[in-house]
């Protein structure tokens, strides 16, 4: 039993919970009724009108009413909002025991010692029914919660059930279903039938038919008993000074709560919440039977919590909520706390018994995979202990019932016992440490060294919340929070009047915590404040941005949004240490105050009319508009002034405003409005302002001021009007007034320039915030710019990928079919070798192991290193290089792609080797140990390992861009070097699928085309151009270059060179063909224009002046050594790696493109994927 709230007063005889608010009414023996807020622990009101004890008390469910019945025979109905008694119902002739409202009808049911039960209508304030039949005091009478029944209990030893359906029907409003009414009237003939006794249960009968159970235990009169609203429990209290809880299914008492001196008199149950109240001789207490705090633990993005005997896991990111396991049943107590171990995926669940010594904990390994619908129920390990907390990956600490500390391992075996200073509770404190709580403080304790490191004084810490990086810790007590650093040095103390419930650290190091009714924040500097209010307590699990993740009392995960602006701002202040005074201005506060009223006031204070207007619109209160109007008028902000006057319907001021701003149209409108409103003086005033004399005459005439009307008309020379008015005068009774001959014309000056715009204002220097926000906006734009740039880079990438066209892919697949077959056999051969190798190794290790045990030490032989295994498991050259087996790697490259000259590969080999193995330090001053990263580390076991490659196809493709740029820049030699580096790297790739194999081959083709073209161009530039033959040769080479497959941007350049050379040579026909090809590529406008000119010139004489070894229409390959065309059908030798073509005489030489392979060598082919061996 957990006491939430206690009061001290005279004997409490009646109790009633408010169904929604955290309120309880207590009626006292001295006639006073108290209204308490049990959450805030405050007395809200006192109602003292009864004379003598008040026993009956009940809140109305919807209305702000409650009813009380006292020993003064009075029933009083009260309104707690008006804070007074509305009326008194008189009629009972003795003490009133209970009073209750009906849940639906405007009825009150009262039971009295005068042996009657009465039903009253509190609207008509009359007694509608008297139920007679009991022949002793009626101790209690209640309405059935849904049916037309009343049950009553009396000292005459009977319980009666009354049917009041007659009363209900009679009270139906007239015009309701008529037949019913007739039916009732029929019954009515036989006399009083409003309430009929349905059953009478006498005491003897209880024992036979009605007594289901007897709960024995109290040893004095039982005062009151109630059913638990949601569980199979009965609560009772008694004059024996105890409250007892009974289990209905087991028919036994489960809990007893005793007081020393006070007899209990009454019990109340909250209709919705897990709350009870009990009144006794000197006050009352509000309590609940068990904790509602869910047990939970947070790790990374995961929340683990216990709900209904299940351990559930919630992924904060995806909000996926799954049950991961079922808990072992058997404890009647809910799980108290949880400690989660991410390394072992294990949990410790602690369960507190009423008697602390009987507390237990369970150690569970969470199943790896689990069906959420029907999760596994793994066998846990249960032991006794107050609390169990992980202290290391494989160790946890248990505070046992003797309050000593045990360290246990994953098998739940005691590893060691640690002597600790007196300690009542332990908390997690990072690896190897614990926080120990004693009577008046918390101690940081190193478990391994068995010594205390630091102590801080704070009473009764209940929860401990570490920040994610464990740099800070919040210690939560009932009414206090202390924030400490890692060394347990106190940084701040916060006192709360309301109970502190839970907390979590946000990413920026602000502690967000909840009390019973608020979410609050605390900075480590001690600054704290309210973020928002709460209806019901919640338990914060995580804070991220403006989301607060929490569990409610029903264990439902929820997400609340908060506005973090205020504490972020304060945090910024603390961290950057601005001169604080500068910032505590209303202007600044405006930006983070969201409450409109405060915002409005602040805005006015700093003269920010716009913000004030916004707030005023939101509030829309007369007072606000008035204040805003005044402020705006002072600033000459007359548009806002106008709006304020309009909103407050201040016509006079509005009219005057229009006058002084020269807005005649609106002024006239105001006059019309005044007329409609029959506001004569306003109407007249308007006419006066407008200088509208005839209107004034009309007004005066209409309101019976005939003489004034006449005078006005006459004075202004409106003779006709004056005459007609004069005629209406009854000359006998009235005198026509004299017209002042010296009268001067009184006319308002006409406005020269109506004031449409506001009064000019000085520019106000921008506040810190506006500046900061503006700057932020700019930064955002910069980022956006960057983004715009980025696609440009990617655009290149796309181009490069486009280059890898479908043709190549098809070829690769064709090739694969054949080669795959051959490879299979080879694979088999390797396997055989492996089998032969391994057995002797295994035997050896077994043998040496045995030798060691004999006593005489035989040093073991060397084992099989992972790198050896890599070589055994793979025939891809790179795996062998990574393993450091250069010899086999070379052989593979030789056999697969015909490498015969390894010089250029040296750099690649060494680099590859250097990424094969990592380092980690063993014992100090010894050489380091080596790690072997493997690409299939997850499932390779001990024998099937393959090294992590560290060279990706995508990286190589990305490197093409650099080469392209160098090409564009005309740095051909550098470009060729880079292309070659890529080309040589391709055989050292490992790829996963056929598409990538094709891409790798395509990459080789691209490199080859560029290398051939660019080396030829470099060569061409070195050639002399004196003679015609030399010039012809130059032209030929330029023409061949146009047949290399290049990027359009490069092809444009190549074609232009060829075009110019051929044009100069007067080979116009061929030049024209280059020009056309060039135009097809869509070059830049100026290039296109020039090309068109040349083309036009060429087309005048479409002939070639000289015969060249170049036929654009006859397809050819280019010999990469002699730079001569090899027309289709002529014999050709190819490079086994790059595929570059050569005239037959070059066979056996080193390929000019790769500089490593032998031309025309018979090879297996490029192998970059295990797929190629299947």
């Amino acid at each position, binding site marked *: 039993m957990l006491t939430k709230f206690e009061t001290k007063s005279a004997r409490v005889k009646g109790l009633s919970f408010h169904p929604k608010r955290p309120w309880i009414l207590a009626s006292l023996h001295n006639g006073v009724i108290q209204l308490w807020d049990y959450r805030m622990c405050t007395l809200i009101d006192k109602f003292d009108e009864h004379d003598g004890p008040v026993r009956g008390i009940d809140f109305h469910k919807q209305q702000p009413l409650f009813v009380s019945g006292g020993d003064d025979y009075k029933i009083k109905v009260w309104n707690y909002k008006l804070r007074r008694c509305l009326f008194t119902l008189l009629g009972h002739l003795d003490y009133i025991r209970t009073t209750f409202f009906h849940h639906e009808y405007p009825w009150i049911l009262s039971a009295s010692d005068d042996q009657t039960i009465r039903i009253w209508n509190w609207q008509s304030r009359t007694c509608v029914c008297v139920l007679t039949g009991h022949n002793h005091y009626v101790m209690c009478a209640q309405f059935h919660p849904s049916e037309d029944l009343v049950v009553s209990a009396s000292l005459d030893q009977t319980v009666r059930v009354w049917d009041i359906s007659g009363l209900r029907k009679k009270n139906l409003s007239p015009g309701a279903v008529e037949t019913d009414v007739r039916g009732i009237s029929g019954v009515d003939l036989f006399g009083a039938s409003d309430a009929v006794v349905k059953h009478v249960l006498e005491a003897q009968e209880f024992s036979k038919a009605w007594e289901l159970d007897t709960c024995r235990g109290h040893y004095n009169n039982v005062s009151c008993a109630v059913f638990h609203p949601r569980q199979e429990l009965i609560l009772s209290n008694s004059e024996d000074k105890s409250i007892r809880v009974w289990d209905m299914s087991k028919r036994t008492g489960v809990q007893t709560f005793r007081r020393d001196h006070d007899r209990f008199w009454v019990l109340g149950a909250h209709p919705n919440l897990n709350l009870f109240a009990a009144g006794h001789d000197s006050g009352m207490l509000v309590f609940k039977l068990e904790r509602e705090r869910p047990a939970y633990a947070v790790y990374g993005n995961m929340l683990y919590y216990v709900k209904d005997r299940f351990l559930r896991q919630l992924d904060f990111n995806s909000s996926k909520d799954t049950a991961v396991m079922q808990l072992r049943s058997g404890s009647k107590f809910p799980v108290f706390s949880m400690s989660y171990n991410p390394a072992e995926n294990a949990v410790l669940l602690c369960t507190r018994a009423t008697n602390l010594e009987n507390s237990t904990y369970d150690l569970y390994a969470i199943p790896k995979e689990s069906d959420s619908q029907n999760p596994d129920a793994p066998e846990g390990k249960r032991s006794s202990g107050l609390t169990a907390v992980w202290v290391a990956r494989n160790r946890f600490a248990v505070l046992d019932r003797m309050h000593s500390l045990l360290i246990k391992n994953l098998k739940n075996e005691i590893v060691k016992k640690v002597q600790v200073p007196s300690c009542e509770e332990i908390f997690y404190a990072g*690896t*190897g440490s614990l926080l120990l709580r004693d009577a008046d403080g918390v101690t940081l304790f190193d478990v391994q060294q068995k010594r205390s490191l630091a102590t801080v004084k704070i009473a009764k810490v209940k929860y401990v919340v570490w920040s994610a990086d464990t740099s800070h810790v919040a210690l939560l007590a009932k009414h206090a929070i202390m924030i400490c650093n890692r060394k347990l040095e106190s940084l701040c103390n916060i006192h709360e009047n309301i109970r502190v419930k839970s907390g979590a650290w946000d990413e920026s190091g602000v502690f967000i915590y909840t009390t019973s009714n608020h979410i609050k924040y605390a900075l480590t500097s001690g600054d704290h404040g309210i973020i928002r209010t709460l209806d019901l307590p919640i338990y914060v699990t995580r804070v991220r941005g403006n989301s607060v993740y929490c569990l409610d009392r029903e264990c439902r995960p929820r997400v609340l949004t908060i506005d973090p602006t205020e504490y972020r701002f304060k945090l910024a202040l603390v961290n950057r240490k601005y001169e604080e005074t500068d910032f505590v201005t209303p202007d600044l506060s405006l930006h983070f105050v969201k409450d409109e009223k405060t915002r409005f006031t602040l805005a006015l204070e700093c003269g920010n009319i716009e913000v004030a207007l916004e707030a005023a619109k939101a509030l829309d209160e007369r007072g606000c508009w008035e204040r805003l109007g005044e402020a705006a008028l002072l600033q000459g902000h007359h548009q806002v002034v106008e709006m304020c006057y309009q909103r407050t319907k201040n016509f006079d001021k509005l009219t005057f405003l229009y006058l002084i701003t020269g807005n005649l149209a609106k002024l006239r409108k105001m006059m019309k409005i005044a007329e409609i409103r029959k506001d004569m003086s306003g109407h007249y005033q308007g006419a006066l302002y407008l200088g509208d004399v005839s209107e004034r005459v009309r007004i005066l005439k209409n309101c019976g001021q005939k003489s004034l009307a006449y005078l006005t008309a006459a004075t202004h020379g409106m003779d006709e009007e004056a005459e007609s008015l004069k005629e209406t005068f009854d000359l006998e009774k009235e005198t026509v007034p004299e017209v002042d001959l010296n009268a001067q014309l009184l006319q308002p000056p006409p406005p020269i320039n109506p004031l449409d715009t506001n009064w000019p204002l000085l520019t106000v220097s921008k506040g810190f915030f506006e500046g900061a926000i503006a700057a932020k906006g700019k930064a955002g734009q910069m980022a956006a710019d960057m983004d715009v740039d980025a696609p440009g880079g990617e655009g290149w990438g796309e181009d490069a990928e486009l280059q890898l066209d479908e043709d190549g892919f098809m070829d690769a697949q064709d090739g694969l079919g054949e080669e795959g077959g051959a490879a299979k056999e080879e694979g088999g051969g390797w396997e055989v070798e492996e089998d032969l190798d391994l057995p002797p190794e295994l035997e050896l290790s077994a043998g040496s192991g045995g030798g060691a045990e004999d006593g005489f030490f035989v040093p*073991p032989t060397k084992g099989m290193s992972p790198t050896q295994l890599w070589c055994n498991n793979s025939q891809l050259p790179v795996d062998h290089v990574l393993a450091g087996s250069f*010899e086999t790697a070379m052989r593979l490259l030789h056999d697969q792609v015909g490498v015969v000259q390894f010089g250029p590969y040296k750099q690649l080999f*060494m*680099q590859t080797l*250097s990424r094969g193995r990592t380092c980690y330090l063993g014992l100090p001053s010894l*050489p380091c140990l080596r*790690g072997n990263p493997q690409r299939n580390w997850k499932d390779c076991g*001990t024998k099937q390992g393959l090294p992590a490659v560290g060279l990706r196809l995508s990286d190589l493709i990305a490197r093409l861009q650099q080469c392209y740029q160098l090409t564009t820049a005309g740095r051909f030699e550098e470009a060729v070097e880079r292309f070659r580096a890529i080309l040589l790297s391709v055989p050292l790739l490992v790829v996963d699928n056929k598409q990538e194999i094709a891409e790798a081959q395509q990459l080789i083709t691209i490199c080859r085309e560029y290398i051939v073209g660019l080396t030829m161009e470099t060569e061409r530039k070195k050639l002399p151009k004196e003679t015609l033959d030399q010039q012809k040769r130059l032209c030929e080479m330029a023409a061949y270059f146009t047949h290399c497959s290049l990027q359009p941007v490069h092809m444009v350049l190549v074609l232009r060179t060829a075009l110019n050379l051929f044009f100069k040579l007067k080979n116009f026909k061929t030049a024209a063909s280059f020009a056309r090809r060039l135009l097809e590529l869509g070059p830049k406008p100026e290039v296109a224009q020039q090309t068109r000119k040349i083309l036009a010139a060429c087309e005048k004489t479409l002939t070639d002046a000289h015969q060249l070894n170049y036929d654009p229409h006859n397809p050819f390959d280019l010999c990469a050594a002699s730079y001569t065309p090899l027309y289709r059908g002529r014999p050709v030798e190819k490079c086994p790696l790059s595929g570059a073509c050569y005239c037959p005489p070059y066979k056996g030489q080193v390929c000019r493109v790769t500089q490593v392979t032998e031309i025309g060598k018979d090879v297996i082919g490029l192998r970059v994927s295990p797929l190629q061996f299947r």
Partner: protein
Amino acid sequence: MATQQGDVDELFDVKNAYYIGSYQQCINEAQKVKRKYAVVMDDIKASSSPELQAVKMFAEYRANEGKRDAIVAELDKKMSKNVDVANTTFLLMAASIYYHEMNSDAALRTLHQGESLECMAMTIQVLLSLDRVDLARKELKKMQEQDEDATLTQLSTAWVNIAVGGEKLQDAYYIFQEMSDKYSPTLLLLNGQAACHMAQNKWEEAEGVLQEALDKDSSHPETLINLIVLTQHLGKAPEVTNRYLSQLKDAHRAHPFLKDYLTKENEFDRLTMQYAPTATA
């Protein structure tokens, strides 16, 4: 390194700092202990001379490349006689020398005579360098039986776990992580974490850890070696990798990694000779 029996080990911080590679702290702590616990130091002094001699021998071996053969010869002589098995320091220093000499047989034979956690830990390291994970596990089990929670046992567990690979890598990572949480992240612990990450192909995670290590010491050889591995796996430009390599070459010419590297270069050159094109231009 004499282990004191008793509930509270006054030298705990010193030893701990030493094992996890926090040498500066180790020295600080040692001085603190000296001041506070003069008695303890006196204790050690009384029985220290043979141990100190052993340390001196090792220091000499490490310092003078020229004298090494002589020192090893002398050591061999000593080892062939009866050895004071209780002198753990001597055993450790002797084994260290043998290990540096790549004479793992002798190292293991020496260590076999000792019973202390230190001897067992070194045995495990030697076994791992021999790729005998099976035997290393056996030795580890013995250590765990003696004191599972000792820092050395934990570290040894991590080494073995890295060698075993697979799921054990995460366990190894947690051990390093736990120690850096508990004490402070030293180069040893950070490189251990990096090795675990890289073994799990978590290159980005490794980058963070190694960067932290690099910030602590920009010329720490093992960190540089790991960075050479990492930068390539991250697909960084070859220039980045080469920078770390030349940094390593500049500062740690005698590091086994570089020795190995040089050997391999020579091997490459030798192997290249075996290949040639059939025709020359």
